[in-house]
């Protein structure tokens, strides 16, 4: 049942005035009612008055509440108002509408974001527009398709993969047909051998967009029909789009069904099994997950269903996440493993870091099982190539017997090159 405050706000609304209400202090329902009842001119007037407030959190709060509600009431007017502001003044409203827009308002959000320079909304590590388009595509891929098609002049091909991955989840063949038309419309330029034995690539951005779309399609298809997609992947494992999609496929399938993910990996050619398994290790395992599906223990035990040569490369990451979140649970698990498997885990145990040498050492010193503890200390020593000096110092200061210190120190490889690290100056 709607809150009483909300119900009464709808039923008994006070008349609107030119005075801007205290939007930040009102409930959403009240603000929604006010802006819905106001004429566009009155809404613009409110905005102008809010813009005139002195800089500070009260102004930010008021403008934020105003735009977060207006995007729900009237996305077109919202876009109009924001695009009428100076560019520097658009950030606050853009941020406000990004967070709350209903999918029907996402076109407005995208249009507003495209009014900024590319460098202002994206970098090597983030792309604000991509996040919005992904959310939009999940809800309404056909609307997103229309948007992208009508904004080709604004360098939006880089986002085609976001459309395709979400569209293919609903309608893989429809998405594929569209991709084919896009390539027909703008064919890829063939590559050409260069003088160094490689290949010269032309129109690289479009090529990259097409490659991304193609592998995204496979991902979307998996979401649409995991069984059919699994069969498809196995049958076309040598297709470049499918191969590239393997970076994510098993991980996506794992979330739905670890058994299905295992079956898929087992059916892949051997050389692709390890790569596919890696997607679980790197992308899925969560140290804070109380739900078994992606906890380090669950993922590690699932990976042990495969031969060592398949999981060997990637289980180290899972062990690292587990060690950071619950080392005692990890050590107890390792101690209970059959000897050959335990040895594999010891060989893949995270090495010591030059920045956290003492902490890494202290963690291993807490291993309850003496034999396992010794084996792990030996592992740290043998793998200390990039933390050789640090580990020697830590060993020296430790409470281990002198003989044991010397023995472990003798296992540390001699460095190829003398390096000077910053922490030497501080000690």
């Amino acid at each position, binding site marked *: 049942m709607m809150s009483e405050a909300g119900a009464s706000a709808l039923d008994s609304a006070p008349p609107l005035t030119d005075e801007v209400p205290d939007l930040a*202090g009102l409930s959403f329902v009240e603000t929604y009612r006010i802006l819905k009842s106001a004429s566009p001119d009155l809404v613009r007037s409110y905005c102008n008055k809010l813009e005139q407030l002195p800089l500070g*959190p009260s102004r930010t709060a008021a403008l934020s509440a105003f735009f977060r509600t207006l995007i729900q009431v009237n996305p077109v007017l919202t876009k109009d108002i924001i695009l009428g502001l100076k560019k520097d003044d658009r950030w606050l409203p853009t941020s406000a509408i990004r967070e709350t827009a209903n999918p029907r308002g996402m076109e407005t959000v995208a249009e507003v974001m495209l009014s900024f320079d590319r*460098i202002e909304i994206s970098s090597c590590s983030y792309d604000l527009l991509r996040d919005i388009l992904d959310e939009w595509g*999940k809800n309404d891929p*056909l609307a997103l398709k229309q948007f992208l098609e009508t904004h080709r002049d604004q360098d939006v091909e880089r986002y085609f993969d976001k459309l395709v991955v979400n569209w293919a989840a609903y309608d893989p063949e*429809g998405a594929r047909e569209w991709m084919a038309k896009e*390539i027909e419309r703008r*064919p890829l330029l063939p590559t050409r051998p260069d003088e160094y034995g490689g290949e010269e690539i032309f129109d*690289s951005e479009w090529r990259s967009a*097409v490659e991304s779309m193609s592998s995204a399609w496979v991902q979307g298809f998996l979401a649409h029909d995991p069984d059919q997609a699994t069969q498809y992947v196995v049958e076309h494992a040598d297709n470049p789009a499918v191969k590239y999609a393997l970076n994510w496929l098993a991980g996506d399938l794992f979330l739905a069904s670890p058994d299905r993910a295992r079956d898929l990996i087992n059916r892949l050619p051997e050389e692709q099994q390890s790569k596919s398994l890696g997607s679980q290790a790197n992308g899925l395992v969560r140290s804070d997950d109380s739900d078994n599906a992606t906890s380090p223990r669950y993922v590690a035990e699932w990976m042990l269903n495969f031969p060592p040569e398949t999981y060997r490369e990637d289980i180290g990451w899972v062990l690292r996440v587990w060690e950071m979140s619950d080392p005692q649970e990890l050590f107890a698990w390792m101690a209970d493993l059959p000897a050959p498997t335990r040895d594999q885990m010891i060989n893949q145990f995270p090495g010591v870091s030059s920045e956290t040498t003492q902490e890494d050492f202290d963690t291993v010193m807490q291993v309850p099982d003496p034999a396992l503890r010794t084996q792990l200390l030996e592992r740290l020593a043998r793998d200390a190539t990039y933390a050789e000096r640090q580990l020697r110092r830590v060993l020296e200061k430790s409470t281990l017997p002198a003989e044991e210190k010397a023995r472990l120190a003798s296992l540390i490889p001699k460095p190829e090159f003398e390096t000077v690290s910053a922490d030497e100056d501080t000690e």
Partner: protein
Amino acid sequence: MRPRAPLVLIGLCVLVAPIGLVLGRWSVATTPASILPPTTVPRSEAHGFASAKPSLAEPGDLSNVTIENLGQVEFDLAFELLSSAPKDALIAWAKRLETLPVTPRRTAAIGVFFKTLAQIDTKTAVDLALSMERADPRWVAIGAVGVAAPLANLTEVARMYTAINETKVPLVGELIERWSMIDPEATAQFLAGYSGKVTNDEIARFLGNWAALDPVAAMQWLQETDASRHCPRVFADFYAGWVLKDRTAALEDLAAHGADKTFKKAIETVSETLFTDSPDGARSFVLMLPTIAAQKAAIEQIAGHVTGRYLGNDYLHLETEDVAKWLFSLPDNLWHEEIGYIIDRWAGYDPSAVDTWLNQVPPQTKDRLLAEQCRAFNWNVPAAGLKAGLQIRDRELREETLRGIFEGKVKELQEELLRKAELSGEQAAELERILKKL
């Protein structure tokens, strides 16, 4: 010459991006024909997206709206549906969303449902989000509630994060930033009882808001809080907020702490704000600062916007000419390190304006400025800098400045500079005469 580290970094980024593009490329050479995944999927209307969209007989018709396709209807309808639904229906819908197949559609549906509900009835949205059993949908719901809840209902969001009891990952940054805009005391009370992780950056934003509303209370909180919070970023935001409320008191207090390096970032941040508002105000502040180091921190922060120290955009959009003139208004022991770069930049796009300005200063000072500009010449476009050096009237200073640039450089570099300098015959002859003495 001082290294142009920022430009090198920008160059690296530009270089890495296409390399990343190439490395990300598939290792197998592809032909256009094989780049698409092969088609083999029979078209099924039952799975087509068109069938997922609700077909509405008329506006306001909710009969075909399902909770899974809430994101495909206008907000009005979604609002009407959720605000009129009895609580049992909301509970049932949340359960149903959780049991949908793990697909983007589920994520989308959960996001829309909880974003919409959080705006209408935050308390119920929080209760339902916390009741979800599986981690993935629960976190989607929590995230949606966290971003969408209105300012007036943030106590409910606080309750949500308290119940989650996450201790390793910082979660409440956005909550405390938003909440402190309208109720910093309540935010502080929440933080006092919250055992989760809160970073100093998050504390900084909270405190900045509080200082802008009630600097006395904010300062008291800062004094009583753990010393680990007494870091440059927190002080910077604190003073930035205080300046908005009571500029005079804030600047006096900051100046009093100016010798302490912990306050350097605060000096930099406040200087920027002052300059954009009033260069004279910024100048007064610089002159208030107790040490040369503090003054230089303020100056370099402003000058950096013009000399290209900051990667990406200059977010203040300062005019080079304004910065040059402002800098020159300061005592010369403060401007001489930075002014050369700034004049050189200015001359790069408006040489006649630079000439006009320089002709208005006393000759001896003009010579000094030309010498600074020359020493700060741009290796890629050295013409303006070198020509400035050749304009120095005082022969000794002229020769010393130009020799200083070429001294120690290998012959090839010297020749490259001369080639790029595009000097007139007379200028080239003068330079040659000077360099003969090397």
